[in-house]
């Protein structure tokens, strides 16, 4: 049976990588632009190739999982239309560069991931992160180790 939450998390992972691809393309000529990738005949395959090329440069944490998902989409009917819908959203975000500031992107993902439509279990909430940091620091002081 289809699990919409898994599909949404996968879609979010893909759109995140698309935003990153477009930002990289504006700074590095080795990276194909998102627009170029989605103009090609087989969108899934062209994105898979573009992301492999990015992985050869670096950015492993962002593109490894995303490319794992993309690999599953190569040759799937309707995949190209779905990817185009995600790419259009990514391009609208990247066209407003103020929205790309790291503090804003953080707030965007917080908003999305705290929605019940996504897996909260895989998201470290801000209070949990703060509590973990406080705990780590208390251990640090107790052991008289240098703290980060």
């Amino acid at each position, binding site marked *: 049976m289809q699990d919409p939450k898994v599909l949404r998390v996968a879609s979010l992972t893909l759109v995140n990588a698309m935003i990153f691809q477009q930002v990289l393309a504006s700074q590095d000529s080795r990276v194909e632009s998102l627009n170029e990738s989605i103009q090609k005949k087989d969108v899934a395959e062209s994105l898979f190739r573009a992301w492999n090329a990015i992985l050869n440069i670096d950015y492993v944490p962002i593109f490894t999982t995303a490319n794992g998902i993309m*690999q599953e989409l190569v040759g799937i009917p309707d*995949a190209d239309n779905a990817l185009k819908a995600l790419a259009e959203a990514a391009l609208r975000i990247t066209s407003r560069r103020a929205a790309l500031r790291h503090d804003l992107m953080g707030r965007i993902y917080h908003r999305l991931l705290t929605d019940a439509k996504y897996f909260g279990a895989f998201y470290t909430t801000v209070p949990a992160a703060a509590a973990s940091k406080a705990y780590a620091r208390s251990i640090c002081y107790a052991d008289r180790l240098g703290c980060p």
Partner: protein
Amino acid sequence: MPTVDFREEVVNVVLAELIEKRGMLSVPETIRRSIARRSRDLPDILVADLLGVRMVIEGRFNTASATRNSLLRDARERVEEGVSPVCLAVLYPPELRSADSLPQLKRNLESATLTIRVISENSDGEWAEGTVDDIVETLRRSYELLVGEDVVVAAVGEIASGIETATDLFTRTPSLSERFRAALGIPEEADGSEEEED
């Protein structure tokens, strides 16, 4: 009285004071004092308070055709780099540079037609001609837009809409959910879609 050539930074402060007089802006006291003391330690850009929102005024004398583009580029950078959510870009007519005194400069500026553009997190704005009163009106509209349409909410809406479209299309391929689950490393027992789906 001999005329004085004023620097752009001074004209920026005088403009900010004129906007402040119309109830739209608050200029830091340190900047005001620097002008009064005729000190040279004025910043290149002026950061002021627009009804509680940080705002940058970036002004240039309109002396070359390239000035407009470089001013727009710099103003965009202020917003993109998070210096402030709003930047007022102003091109001053070159004749504003010279005046007998600071009060004269203020009078000249008050009656001048300036080329302005307000860049904010929500909008790139458009170039327009206007007086100080027009700037105040433009700033008021930009402020209302800025506080009324949060850029985060707009971006979340765009991403969420794209995700919903993609999810609907992905559901047509029955095996995708399991394949994605494996690629994402989500264990089977994490599935709580029935209780949380809305």
